[in-house]
């Protein structure tokens, strides 16, 4: 809101200069890489020429190497695990926040489980659940579940006492208080977790695939690397990044257009 309205010509030209500089830097680095590889200063085994990477991206996007199959596998793992974690995390968080005794009981266990770096259990999960979908879903779930629980609890606790008083004055039932006051109050805090955890969920899925899998983008990346196909490895990195950015953007849009459209935009920049 602030930038678009205060757009004086001076500010606009400064921003144009900034963008120009950024593009120049990017182009310079890419050109340098290209020159280093083409001039055989650096072996293309270590660093691919940007043009080769671009070719590889185009190739993958045209369906080479079963790219869309792999993409579908990764998205399925990611979405299943993530949505399960979102549903379970919000419900469990709500339960803990509304039942103080339950929170007191479960808090140490939650804290302990949350403290475990989740990557350390991936090999064990492979042993228990194999190489397939279930394995990745569980990894993704574990990556996202705990922060969502914690943020739900924190969000519920932000419910304003005055807002609760209003609902009580209208004789709201306990369920109505939860659905009409408590949950809406917690939405901003829950969404903060959903945004961060969407990226974490993809990391979980990709990492699980890199450790043990038969398909998926992470599998393709590992395969390319082990074959010293660096252009393809870079192409995978770029495409996986795009998937990650897309998923976070979807969450952002959902937040802005549906759940938090009542919020002034500034308050979310922090």
């Amino acid at each position: 809101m602030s930038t678009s309205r205060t757009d004086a010509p001076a500010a606009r030209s400064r921003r144009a200069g900034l963008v120009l500089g950024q593009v120049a830097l990017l182009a310079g680095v890419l050109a340098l890489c290209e020159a280093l590889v083409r001039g055989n200063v650096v072996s293309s085994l270590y660093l691919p020429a940007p043009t080769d990477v671009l070719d590889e991206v185009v190739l993958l996007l045209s369906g080479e190497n079963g790219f869309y199959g792999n993409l579908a596998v990764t998205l399925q793992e990611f979405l299943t695990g993530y949505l399960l974690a979102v549903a379970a995390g919000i419900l469990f968080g709500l339960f803990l926040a509304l039942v103080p005794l339950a929170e007191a009981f479960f808090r140490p266990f939650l804290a302990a489980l949350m403290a475990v770096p989740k990557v350390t259990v991936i090999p064990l999960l492979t042993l228990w659940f194999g190489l397939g979908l279930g394995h990745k879903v569980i990894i993704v779930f574990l990556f996202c579940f705990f922060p969502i629980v914690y943020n739900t609890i924190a969000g519920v606790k932000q419910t304003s006492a005055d807002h609760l008083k209003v609902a009580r004055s209208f004789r709201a039932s306990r369920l109505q208080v939860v659905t009409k006051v408590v949950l809406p109050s917690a939405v901003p805090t829950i969404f903060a977790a959903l945004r961060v955890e969407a990226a974490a969920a993809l990391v979980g899925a990709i990492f699980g695939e890199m450790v043990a899998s038969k398909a998926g983008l992470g599998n393709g990346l590992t395969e390319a690397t082990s074959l010293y196909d660096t252009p393809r490895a870079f192409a995978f990195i770029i495409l996986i990044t795009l998937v990650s950015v897309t998923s976070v953007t979807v969450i952002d849009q959902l937040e802005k257009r549906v759940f938090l459209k009542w919020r002034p935009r500034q308050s979310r920049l922090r």
Partner: protein
Amino acid sequence: MSGQGFTVTGVSKTYEGSGLVQALDGIDLTVGEGEFVVLLGRSGCGKSTLLEIMAGLQTPTSGTVRLGDREITAPDERIGVVFQDPSLYPWRTVGRNVELGLELAGVPKARRRAVAQEHLELVGLPDVGNKYPRQLSGGMRQRVGIARALATRPDVLLMDEPFGAVDHLTRLQLQRDLLRLQAEDTRTVVFVTHDVAEAIVLADRIVLLTPGPGRIARTWDVSRPRPRTLGDPELTVLREEIYAHLEDRERQPR
């Protein structure tokens, strides 16, 4: 409609904090049907506590509150409450805020939408239904708070320093609006304020509460016709009397 007055009998309230704090001590008060009673006093005199007990939002440590022939032990559909900070839900549009009480009572959507719009018009805000509370000024938000309380058509309005958070000129306007609403459709009103002038402009009866613990110090009947101006000699005398009483109380050791 008869019998929708309040009878407060021997109400005391003690809070357990670090030690016991007695907020109210032996309050006896009757509010007749259609009467506009102002609870006046400085902060900490227990006037908001008394109002919340009358609203069924707090329970007294001892004593009873009756509205008509029923004892108030929980929020009651005959009572509408207007809070100091209107506490509109920021995630709801203004219209849906006004609908809140009807929605919680299970009134169908089309019906409550119409009633909400009608009450927004009543408080002079016909065009803000689709806005969000943050887009309104403080005075407009407070009007919405009043519309929300009125939308469930209560017999009684309990108002807790409703104009305390707006600027002086807005406050005068809101007072005039409230009197207009009362003139159109008289309800029983209990109104909490620490503003002596506000009390004089609005009240049929002023009840002065003094703190430590909260007790009723004195009451005044105000019979001058409305609209009142503070330049009215009779009201000037009353104002001086109230101030004198407040200061007199201050000098007494407690």
